[in-house]
């Protein structure tokens, strides 16, 4: 933000009116106390020891929105929705892929099922963290690096990948 900011040209009666508006909103539609408490509590969810795998591809992001008919087809009423594909990636200093965590998100009832694969392949432990559930859960990825996590609650989630001999990798928090 380098643009200069216009000086405010508020008239003397604007101040009280702004204050009334502010009071009205904080009365009628404040940030819910539970949401604020959860945001504060999320401090303990920091991944202190893990490398961050950024979300580099999201099949439902704006830029990834296919221009063609495919998007129309899958969005039509009654059509089976195309599962959302997320790709998280750690890139090393030389710009090479270090770790890729690819995840497909499907709605199963009110929950989500995550089906994923890892590159490089190989066994690993995947931990799923959510703000909505106090306990982190773990699943094992098989020898080919495939894993399934059921019963993920809708909302923010992050996966932590742990492998013997490698630093832990945590995905960017993502709303599913």
């Amino acid at each position, binding site marked *: *933000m380098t*643009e*200069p*900011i*216009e*000086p*405010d*040209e*508020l008239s003397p*009666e*604007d101040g009280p*009116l*702004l*204050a*009334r*508006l*502010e*009071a*009205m*909103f*904080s*009365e*009628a*539609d*404040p*940030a*819910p106390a*539970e*949401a*604020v408490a*959860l*945001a*504060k509590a*999320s*401090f*303990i*969810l*920091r*991944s202190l020891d893990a490398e*961050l795998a950024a979300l580099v591809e*999201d099949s*439902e*992001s*704006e830029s990834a*929105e296919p221009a063609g008919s495919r998007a129309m087809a899958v969005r039509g009423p009654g059509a089976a929705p195309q599962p*959302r594909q997320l790709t998280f990636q750690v890139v090393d200093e030389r710009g090479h892929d270090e770790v890729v965590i690819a995840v497909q998100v499907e709605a199963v009832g009110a929950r989500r099922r995550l089906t994923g694969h890892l590159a490089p392949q190989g066994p690993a432990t995947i931990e799923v963290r959510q*703000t909505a559930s106090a306990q982190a859960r773990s699943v094992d990825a098989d020898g080919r690096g495939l894993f399934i996590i059921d019963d993920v609650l*809708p*909302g*923010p989630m*992050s996966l932590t990948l742990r492998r013997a001999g490698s630093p832990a990798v945590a995905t*960017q*928090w*993502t*709303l599913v």
Partner: protein
Amino acid sequence: MSDSEPADDMALLVGKALGGDHAAWNRIVDRYSGRVWAICRVHNLGQADAADVFQQTWLRALENLAALRDPDRFGAWLGTTCRNEARATLRRGRRTQPVDDTWLLDREAGPDGDPERPVLMAARDSELWGAFSQLGTRCQQVLRVLVVDAEDRRPSYELAATALDMPIGSLGPTRKRCLNQLRRFLTEGIDGETRES
């Protein structure tokens, strides 16, 4: 938290939070929660989606804290992140069932009184509410997002500009124009009849 600190202290709070000070993080959340919530709401998110986007925005802030020491940058970053998450959520339409509460600002004044107006609202506020809901969407957005900024007497234009996708220099003039219109609705009455007051 009753007091609000000067903007310079944001860098200090972020530094403390990075060092593991949970209380410092709590103060950051307290300080910006109203604004982040307002951004969720001006994007027409229902209560459940707004709560998710709110959480997601804070989790991402935590993830990126090291890069957010500059207070202006922090506000702009929060505004951008919250806006993007809100838009993505709307696009996905994750929760297709009707939300339990329509967006605050969508409630229209009914012919005789306003059934959807929050019940406990004081008469004085309810008059303001009626006038506010007559404003155009852009005015409602600017007044909602910038009004919460007023809490620390340092309107964070950076946050509002990114959250609403508006040039930073147009916010002040837009707010000015919207306030004038709001005042006109208030003094003239919503139906245009002159009130004695």
